[in-house]
């Protein structure tokens, strides 16, 4: 049996902050044990990151602070521009319907800003660690969801409100609080509004950047439960970034371990957690479990 082509394909993704020099690739990365080049002082946040994500799959990216995992997610969400790399999406007919200019196999980093914005709005959902980044706190919870629908061309207030109420109900936010400002919500509820917003346009890819960090343990568990059940129900290809191996174990099927901007180990999540091969992964697993 041949597998269908992966929905996301990333090749050689690299992002450097600073001028860069020819020695950078050699003097930075996991082997050099730093991500700052001693010659030109440039920081290579991620280097030569390649992976594939299949439809319905959940991929984990784990690593310590500064390992480049959030940079990868921001590059994939077009929040940052890469120094080098290729990024392709293989969409089925329904997902590509609103984007007639999108050619199959096109490198998305070569698209113009307007096309990137459309693509991001239609096909990607992101949930940030800090709800401040993903939500407009001066706009009602329903309005936050409506913003993405408006961007996608919705022009009926009633239909947008129905959609927002439906999503909030699914993410366990009381629907009667739809017209309240999210800054009056608790942290866990803000995070659930963010998830509802990310799911509003039925994205093909969902990016979760440290979603449970900063929440207390019982709220963390509820948010994780919610993500897991929504993911199973909607079968969205998902990338989960976390430094918390518990989150990785609970949500993901496959995991990349990053250090100093490079991938040091990858494989099935269970395998990586039970039988880590790379010394850094061994340290990571031993220090948390």
């Amino acid at each position, binding site marked *: 049996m041949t597998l269908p082509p992966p929905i996301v394909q990333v090749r050689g993704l690299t992002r450097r902050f600073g001028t860069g020099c020819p020695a950078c690739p050699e003097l930075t990365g996991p082997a050099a044990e730093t991500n700052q080049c001693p010659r030109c002082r440039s920081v290579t946040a991620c280097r030569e990151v390649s992976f594939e994500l299949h439809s319905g799959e959940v991929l984990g990216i784990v690593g310590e602070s500064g390992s480049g995992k959030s940079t990868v997610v921001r590059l994939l969400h077009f929040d940052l521009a890469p120094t080098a790399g290729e990024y392709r999406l293989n969409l089925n007919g329904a997902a590509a319907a609103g984007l007639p200019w999108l050619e199959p196999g096109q490198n998305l980093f070569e698209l113009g*800003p*307007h096309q990137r914005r459309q693509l991001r709005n239609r096909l990607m959902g992101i949930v940030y660690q800090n709800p401040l980044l993903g939500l407009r706190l001066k706009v*009602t919870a329903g*309005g936050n969801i409506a913003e993405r629908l*408006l961007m996608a061309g919705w022009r009926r207030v009633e239909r947008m409100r129905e959609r927002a109420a439906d999503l909030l109900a699914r993410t366990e936010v009381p629907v009667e609080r739809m017209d309240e400002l999210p800054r009056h919500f608790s942290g866990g509820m803000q995070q659930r509004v963010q998830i509802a917003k990310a799911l509003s346009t039925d994205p093909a890819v969902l990016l979760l950047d440290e979603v449970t960090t900063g929440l207390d343990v019982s709220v963390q568990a509820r948010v994780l439960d919610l993500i897991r059940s929504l993911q199973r129900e909607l079968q969205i290809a998902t990338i989960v970034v976390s430094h918390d191996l518990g989150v990785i174990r609970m949500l993901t099927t496959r995991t990349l371990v990053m250090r100093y901007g490079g991938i040091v180990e990858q494989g099935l999540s269970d395998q990586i957690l039970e039988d880590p091969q790379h010394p850094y992964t061994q340290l990571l697993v031993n220090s948390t479990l």
Partner: protein
Amino acid sequence: MSRPARAGAPADWRDGLPPGRDGYSFAFLDAGAKREIRRRILKAVAIPGCQVPFGSREMPIARGWGTGGLQLTLALIGPEDVLKVIDQGADDSVNAVSIRRFVQRVTGVRTTTDTPAATLIQTRHRIPEEPLRPHQILVFQVPIPEPLRLVEPSEKETRRMHAEADYSRMWLYLYEDIVTYGEITIGARYPVLVNRRHLMDPSPIPRWDVERLDRNPALMLFCAGREKRIYALPPHTLVEPLQFEDVPFRVESFAGRRCRRCGSARSFLDEAIDEATGRRSYACSDAAFCEKVRKAGGRTAPEPEEGGP
């Protein structure tokens, strides 16, 4: 700009001008300033609704008092033009009178209060009630040219939004308004989409006038002197107010009300409250139109009730 040929115009524009321009060039602005402003107007006309920056000059009135409109008027006016200046519809308010007198003094052009007789009309916050004709130019004074300023303080960001036609934030503002108040609460400065591309601030005209921008046969020019922006609606340009399919755009309603002076029921009315008795009364905001209706005997033969849009 297509203007009617001026039959019998003097060969040299200096001929036939009244004395007493006190050593200023015709229409006050120097040739360099006029050329700058005219070039910017051409660009603005070529991209309807797009804000074009220009080198705004110091004027002998304070910024914020119509320097933008005045600069357009002075850059466009010729000796054969007939000028009308209105302020909220009135020809006789201090601001309108001062600007009209100033332009008259530095050009010697004829002035009028009659809308069809004017070739160039400078206006603050109203469109004359009488329909405009082709070859007329309407110049708007604009306080805030950026429609997105309401939702985004950064100029860099609003320029990006215009470049990518990303107006979702403005739509979101309208959605929030409907959710919070049950309707869109923007009274004046209602945002419009020009030529299905650029979001434009129509200057603080009432909603009543917004629909009259659409496919108007006259050339409409907008200028903000303080903010240094020119934009334009060429004749017959498509102008649509932002509206939801299930919450359509509404203009002000004067149902059952008439002008106390001329009896008109189809013009934009100003409300006045008598402080002694507390009674409300209504009068046309466009004073010249009101006068015309009155002279034609509008008071004795009132307009039918269903005449208002």
